[in-house]
């Protein structure tokens, strides 16, 4: 019994930490897909690109991965800006976004992934930092102690800061409110004298920019290889849809739910089942409750 409780407790703690980390990976998609209706399925692959940039800076100059993530964030902002520029001019303006827009982002996903394979190969890569590898043991009771890996703790803290600051940016500032207004009624925004396309462009760039810091966290938590983005695809989409499209607090809560579910399954059934968890939840949510747990209606549109 003690062993069971020990395992369960550890799984819960790891799950919550993992959830915070997942929130940081999903927050960008929650903006682009949830608020702006731009289905950036290349988002997880952009995160992997961010992770490889962190790896490159870390292995070449020994820069701390989190600092590396902060350095690469502006680069992703510009990338997002350019991508939206193309997306708007080619697809959104003509109203042909659905099928072709999807194919466009699917192609981008593929180009980034294959480009990374060509550059870095398919080996697993990791970064070096003082907090990686250590863990913190808390004795809870007889034969029960909880081990908290520092790498997850660091990722959790950075993720929480990033997620909360985006949350406050979107709810408290004028521009943030404009972004949410775009999601609700573009025409009304235009009547108010705001250029909705400009707002969307900056918001999309912001969503993509999270790939810089998110990617750095990704490689801190686990060694990565170029195709790992596809596995995270299930996580981030499950979280964004489950959280109710575009709700930042919903995203955080959904991320914790997915994190705990994944960690419990990994503990009791083996880690190789973990990918099926998020995709299974995603499929179930899409099939039975497309509006998510807390949010506006999706699926029917």
């Amino acid at each position, binding site marked *: 019994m003690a062993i069971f409780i020990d395992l369960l407790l550890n799984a819960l703690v790891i799950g919550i930490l993992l959830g915070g980390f997942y929130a940081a990976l999903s927050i960008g998609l929650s903006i682009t897909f949830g608020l702006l209706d731009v*289905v950036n*399925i290349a988002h997880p692959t952009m995160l992997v690109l961010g992770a490889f940039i962190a790896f490159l800076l870390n292995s070449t100059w020994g820069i701390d991965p989190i600092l590396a993530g902060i350095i690469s964030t502006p680069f992703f902002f510009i990338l997002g800006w350019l991508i939206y520029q*193309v997306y708007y001019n*080619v697809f959104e303006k003509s109203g*042909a976004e*659905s*099928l*072709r827009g*999807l*194919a*466009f982002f*699917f*192609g*981008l996903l*593929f*180009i980034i992934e*294959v*480009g990374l*394979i*060509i550059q870095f190969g398919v080996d697993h890569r990791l970064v070096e930092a003082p907090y990686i590898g250590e863990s913190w043991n808390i004795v809870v009771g007889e034969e029960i102690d909880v081990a908290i890996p520092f790498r997850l703790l660091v990722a959790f803290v950075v993720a929480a800061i990033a997620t909360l600051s985006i949350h406050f940016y979107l709810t408290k500032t004028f521009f943030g409110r404009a972004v949410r207004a775009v999601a609700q009624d573009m025409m009304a925004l235009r009547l108010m004298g705001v250029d909705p396309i400009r707002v969307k462009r900056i918001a999309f760039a912001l969503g993509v920019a999270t790939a810089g810091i998110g990617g750095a966290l990704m490689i801190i938590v686990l060694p990565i290889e170029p*195709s790992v983005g*596809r*596995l995270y*695809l*299930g996580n981030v*989409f499950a979280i964004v*849809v489950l959280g109710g499209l575009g709700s930042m607090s919903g995203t955080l809560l959904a991320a914790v739910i997915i994190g705990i579910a994944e960690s419990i399954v990994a503990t009791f059934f083996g880690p*190789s*089942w973990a*990918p*099926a968890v998020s*995709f*299974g939840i*995603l*499929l179930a949510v*899409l*099939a*039975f409750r*497309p509006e998510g747990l807390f949010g506006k209606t*999706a*699926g*029917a*549109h």
Partner: protein
Amino acid sequence: MKYTFEIICMLLIVGLFVLTQVIGNQFYFFIGFVILQYMVMATAWNILGGYGGYVNFGSAGFLATGAYTAVALINFLDVGLVEQMVAGGVIAGLLGLATGYLTLRLRGVYFAIATLALAIILETIVAHWDYVGGAAGTSILPKRKPELFGELIVDRKAGIFENYKEYLFFLMGTVAIISVWVARYIENSKLGRGLNAIKDSEEAAECMGVPTLRLKLIATTISGAMMGVAGAPLASYLTFIDPLSAFNLEYAINAIAMPMIGGTISWAGPVIGALLLGTAQQVSSLWIQSELNLLIVGVVLVVFVIIAPEGIIGWFRKSRQGSGR
């Protein structure tokens, strides 16, 4: 003449058979198989994606369903290739039917994401299914001296085909021609027009009395079954199969890129796309690394989606209209 297209199809099948008897170099059959397999995949994808507007990102999942049905059958009964392909088609068709019911709730993007999720769940399950090799994969030895209707098919001296490469090529070619015929038939039938109406506006189609759910179910089933048939011989072709090769994203991207490049509005689009892109990939893989190859597919897809939304067919139609004026 009414049956011109059918006669051409028959002639093409006969032509394929003649090729297997005349050409001695096995390399052509080796790469020809892949191109024909892509042609089936692209045609199948287009029935749902091009006609109906429902994007399937999980093509590899359907292909792998066919492939693993075949592997399970080989382990269980040691049946021949044709039976494997029929079984692969049936199982993948049932899977297609199930995804069809998803369209009850899911439109557009959500359907696309759901198909991707489905493929990854299937991959995880197969990786844990030891009977078909699990994550490590399994080797498949083609049956020696297979017979069909009492005829010896593959044998160096007495068989119809000298070896398995020729047999696989001929089977896949036949399947490709039949799929194209089916796609063309659908396009000109009530089903095709109904699917087109769904693509334009599902609500409007429903209001006009189009039985949307039934049409979508038929389309997903046919599309899934075709992909399953295309996947069934994969194990025999590679003589080895593991989840990584069967669920390769390469199939998913090609199944989308080929119709997009050729043109999604007509059956000829996927055929043109598969011939061009498939041949280019196979030929260039001789001297450049396969990753670079896939990079080119990705770039070509993005470029075509941006500059030629109707694909090569749309391009030709436009230029013909332009000169006619």
